[in-house]
């Protein structure tokens, strides 16, 4: 069976829908992983031991096991305890939490690097500890790690292909559906690869714009 790319056009709609879902799940998980990362970083640095240790353990667990395994756990595990989530939501939680752990490592390092005087000055000006953290320390720390967080977001985009295995109809599963009807694996996976590549380029452009916008010295 040779290659015949004329099988693609009838499935343009299917693939386009897949692209939209890939962008949607990536965006939703990216937002979750960003704010989740901040929350986890604050917990890791400021929460009392009794809260910090279990979080530390779960973070260690999530950094040491494959994302695919975590997705199975979340998708099938939550059903087990009576929470029946749609695959999309399970995918967002899985991807979002996985990358939140990685983001939190970056943000923690940056928060430690923020000058102690910043917190002290904010407290002196009458802000509560929580206000000082949210309004003074966290924004400075986050700005410093925008580029590496951007790298995590790119990794997230590519790992979003994994949610196809729990049945989210994103780009990879859309390609698989088309292959199920045409038996043309090479053509459709090649098309999916090209589409991922284009999304990736777009995302890199957005991240670069965002980095420049938030740079301290221009």
């Amino acid at each position, binding site marked *: 069976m040779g290659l015949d790319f004329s099988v693609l056009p009838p499935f343009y709609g299917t693939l386009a829908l897949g692209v939209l879902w890939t962008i949607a799940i990536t965006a939703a998980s990216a937002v979750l992983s960003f704010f989740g990362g901040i929350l986890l970083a604050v917990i890791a640095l400021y929460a009392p031991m009794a809260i910090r240790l279990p979080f530390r353990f779960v973070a260690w667990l999530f950094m040491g096991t494959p994302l695919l*395994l975590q997705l199975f756990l979340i998708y099938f595990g939550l059903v087990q305890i009576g929470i029946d989530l749609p695959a999309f939501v399970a995918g967002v939680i899985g991807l979002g939490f996985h990358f939140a752990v990685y983001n939190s490592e970056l943000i923690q390092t940056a928060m430690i690097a923020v000058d102690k005087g910043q917190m002290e000055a904010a407290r002196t000006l009458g802000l509560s500890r929580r206000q000082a953290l949210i309004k003074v320390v966290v924004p400075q720390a986050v700005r410093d790690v925008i580029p590496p967080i951007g790298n995590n977001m790119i990794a997230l985009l590519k790992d979003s292909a994994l949610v196809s295995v729990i049945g989210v109809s994103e780009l990879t599963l859309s*390609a698989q559906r088309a292959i199920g009807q045409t038996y043309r694996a*090479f053509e459709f*996976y090649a098309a999916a690869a090209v589409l*991922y590549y284009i999304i990736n380029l777009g995302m890199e452009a957005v991240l670069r714009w965002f980095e420049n916008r938030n740079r301290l010295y221009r």
Partner: protein
Amino acid sequence: MDTELILKVYPYFLEAAVVTIELSILTIVLGLICGALGATARLSRFKALRFLGAAYVSFFRGTPALIQLFLLYFGGPQIGIQLDAFEAGVIGLGVNIGAYMTETMRGAIIAIDKGQGEAARTLGLSREQAFRKVVLPQALRLMIRPLGVNINAQIKGTALVSAISVVELTYTAQRYIGSTYKPFEMFFLAGVLYLVIITITGKGVAYLDRKVRLPA
């Protein structure tokens, strides 16, 4: 936690962990070879080689590893590449991580002060000697830690081959989740084994890094 079930199925998980270790070793070795070739190409004097190296890195880092794996395994036969699932897994993932390792190695090499190569040339070493005897040994020292990060990612990345039905840890966990409806127990079992593999590897990398580290 159903310990009885865990005790009953753990031998299958151990067998699967051996497959995961095999996959990890083979993909990492292939990745290191691809990385060395890729870095050589990217730093070459010849424009065509530099372009090839850049294209390799860009394609494999710009698309999901899962898609690359499917393209090779399911699409390969259409262009005359017939591989069984294990072979496709090793080649697909090895070439993929090789692209990341290319950048790691290139980064370490260009981090070495230019003066080192220049000084070596001035002392009469050829371009090739200067690289092999002066620049590379220093760069190798810088590479160990970031390559360790790639290796850590790759061990977890072997889970992807479960999608093409290679019976490794994640596939085994998934199958038992399906047949026993005990996701937490199965995740626990597979997770512990992954953590053991990753922790031991991490310690090995840290040891190697300490061994070659220059005193501060």
